[in-house]
């Protein structure tokens, strides 16, 4: 992957193995938060490798991932970067998954069925005000 010029501002990392979904979310968030650098990872392992250098402000984490799942990835990521906020983003909208994400350290849970209505407000609530300006 070619390195892009990173604009000043917070980094948002999307962890999603389904490439079309990852790209859709990346576009959605790039438009909503132009001051942020929005990047993607296709697995939990790749995300954890990138986290140290990226130091993302917010991570959008799918639950069902190949290899390590999103709940375990959240737990490990929060141990590495306690100030990073994690938004679980999953088609599994049952309380058991929400609770598991919360206990792993996630700050929010957005069902994939509500991506277009809820994901941007959920992330906006976790970014510093300066990152919300266009």
């Amino acid at each position: 992957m070619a390195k892009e010029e990173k604009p000043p501002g917070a980094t948002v990392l999307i962890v999603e193995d389904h490439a079309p979904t990852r790209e859709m979310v990346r576009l959605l968030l790039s438009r909503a938060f132009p001051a942020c650098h929005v990047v993607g990872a296709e697995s939990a392992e790749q995300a954890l490798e990138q986290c140290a250098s990226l130091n993302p402000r917010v991570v959008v984490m799918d639950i069902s991932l190949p290899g390590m799942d999103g709940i375990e990835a959240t737990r490990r990521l929060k141990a590495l970067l306690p100030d990073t906020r994690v938004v679980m983003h999953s088609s599994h909208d049952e309380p058991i998954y929400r609770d598991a994400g919360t206990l792993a350290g996630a700050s929010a849970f957005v069902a994939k069925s509500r991506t277009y209505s809820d994901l941007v407000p959920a992330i906006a609530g976790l970014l510093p005000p300066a990152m919300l300006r266009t």
Partner: protein
Amino acid sequence: MSHLNVLVVDDNPQFLKAVRQMIAGLPGVDRVDCANSAAEALVRIGKSSPHLVLTDLSMPNMNGLELIRSLRAAPAPPRVVMMTLHDSPAHRAAALRMGAEECVAKHELGVVLPELIASLAGPAR
């Protein structure tokens, strides 16, 4: 006895209504507001400065733990009690670690709330 302003936060409108009715009748309570989400709670807290916030742990979008974290950053944060569907040590530990005063299973609210409100409505420390 001081007059408490209380904010209840839960994504279930029926539960909110039930808890509001329960609290509104307790001695020492002046006002009970409700919020259907953590985001709405943050707006209401900025406007009404409640003394006590009762918040659900598990809500869509921002959860109760993140709400507590956001409240702690404020200059004079309200006291917070976490409400959970299940009485689990893990939930309790997470809530207390984040700064909640107490973590109460929802089915115990009828017993715990009157005592809690009475202790908060007493003389200031």
